[in-house]
């Protein structure tokens, strides 16, 4: 039997929606392999969320329950996962390319001596061999590589969030939920002492819409405009490297080769020239809007909608119009 596993992403006691994207990939691959798709979940009181995973495409949910698994911990998680993976010998394991997935997956692959492909944007099954074909960008987005793990099992990949739409939720789908009560004496050498939540702000990697600013914003105060607009649109604020280096905005907002990689539904680049290092972080956005006063800025070559004009003037007006809209709607 060809098993495909996905590692569910649990954040603060909730199954995070990136998990449904993994299930969509998992379903696509599992159907080609004619196998079984299992969603692995680690945590504590998650029972009432498990059926969702079946509605979104899983054949089986394997829930590993223990209060010590409530908070992501590499050592505790791998203590549970490694024996299970060794016993079931799945063909493929997928996780999201989030801070959790990008930490636990290479750790597991290191222990299991198998291949792991990072940050995949496309997955497929090779027809004659049944092997997983993993496609990913690298070298600042200048190259796409397709990678295989020909002789080791499981074949492992982290998958870039927002790369695939979840399947439609189907409440009639049937599947099996298996609860493993874990009676392990965890003795991890690391422990979370505290979590300082970033309130309200939507993280760049989760946002449907991102509005980013560069030097064309002229001064740091103008970033308030971006924050206001992001708030009105329900999105997040990004920045180019130069403004982060000048201290206009914190590093956590930096998009690009040495910052975050994002792929929202819409990316609005304001006053950003579009150096290849910045493009590397946002080129996979579904739609790109560029606002720049220089008609020859490289950013226009990658934008779906380019507006040549003054950033501040356009932003101020955009903010006002969005506010008016909001008032009308409430």
């Amino acid at each position: 039997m060809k098993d495909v596993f996905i590692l569910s992403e649990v954040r603060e006691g909730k199954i995070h929606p990136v998990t449904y994207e993994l299930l969509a990939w998992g379903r696509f691959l599992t159907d080609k392999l004619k196998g079984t798709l299992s969603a692995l979940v680690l945590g504590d009181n998650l029972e009432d969320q498990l059926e969702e995973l079946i509605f979104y495409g899983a054949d089986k949910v394997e829930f590993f329950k223990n209060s010590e698994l409530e908070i992501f911990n590499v050592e505790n998680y791998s203590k549970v996962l490694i024996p299970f993976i060794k016993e079931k010998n799945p063909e493929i394991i997928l996780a999201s390319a989030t801070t959790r997935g990008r930490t636990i997956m290479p750790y597991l692959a290191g222990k299991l001596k198998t291949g792991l492909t990072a940050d995949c944007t496309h997955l497929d099954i090779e027809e004659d061999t049944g092997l997983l074909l993993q496609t990913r960008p690298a070298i600042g987005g200048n190259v796409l590589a397709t990678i295989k793990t020909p002789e080791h099992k499981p074949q492992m990949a982290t998958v870039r969030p927002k790369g695939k739409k979840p399947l439609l939720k189907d409440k009639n789908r049937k599947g099996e939920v298996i609860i493993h009560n874990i009676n392990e004496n965890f003795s991890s050498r690391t422990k979370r002492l505290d979590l300082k939540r970033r309130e309200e702000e939507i993280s760049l990697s989760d946002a449907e819409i991102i509005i980013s600013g560069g030097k064309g914003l002229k001064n740091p105060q103008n970033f308030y405009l971006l924050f206001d607009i992001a708030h009105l649109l329900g999105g997040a604020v990004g920045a180019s490297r130069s403004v982060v280096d000048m201290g206009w905005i914190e590093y956590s907002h930096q998009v690009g080769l040495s910052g975050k990689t994002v792929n929202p539904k819409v990316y609005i680049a304001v006053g950003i020239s579009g150096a290849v290092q910045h493009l590397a972080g946002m080129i996979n956005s579904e739609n790109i809007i560029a606002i720049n006063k220089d008609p020859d800025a490289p950013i226009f070559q990658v934008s779906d909608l380019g507006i040549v004009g003054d950033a501040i003037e356009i932003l101020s007006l955009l903010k006002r119009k969005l506010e008016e809209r909001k008032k009308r709607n409430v």
Partner: protein
Amino acid sequence: MRIIILIKQVPATDKVKMDEETGTMKREEVESVINPLDLYAIEAGLQVRERIKEDIEIVVISMGPPKAKEAIKEAISMGCDKGYLLSDKTFAGADTWATSFTLSTFIKKLGEFSIIFTGERATDGETGQVGPSLSAQLDLPILTYVSKIKEIGKDYIIVEREIEEGTEVVFSSLPCVISVIKAISEPRLPTLAGKLRAREREIPIITLKDLGVSERDVGLLGSPTRVVKIFYPKLSREGIKIKEKNPERAVDIIIKFLEERGIL
């Protein structure tokens, strides 16, 4: 106390040429630099030493072709004490598993240490997998995405990590592996004294024979992954560019675009 810093030499530009037959990079043809994100790992190591004021030896390790020695020398000129270059024809073509295996085999031989610092990821392969994989192979705790060292003692460390929900404060026993992000601190520049020191410092070359492992466990042969195809994505899009004198109309076009995509 000893601190280990792992650095990789990477092509200075991202216009790397690829060998389409083997899926490897043509590293010889381009100028190389220390992976820019590894400078932050070096800085983190140097700052720990300044903070503890103890006798701490800072050792830089890199795996790469002979010219990766330059990267190690640069790290020494920034203040690191010494370096080793793991270099052997058989190491070439290593994926993240084989790289971590080779590095961890050498680290085990090196003896005791408190922390291994790595960069968040290398700007060529861009996987960020070597740190966590190495920690698994050394059976050590791993702390990724570390933005700050809050406290450090003889046998423990408390750091801040940036995760999707916010900033996590995490305790770990030492020794451990830490991958740092840029927020950790701006890297310092090499000093003149450092450059002189680096010029004189011998960089031992470690080969397959020194590691005492099989050729089949390192480099391309030891790599579970294979690049089967390389292609160049088209960067440009067939977008529309509007030169709109009237900002009012420009904003209406943006709003309509957002409506059509279901954002509004």
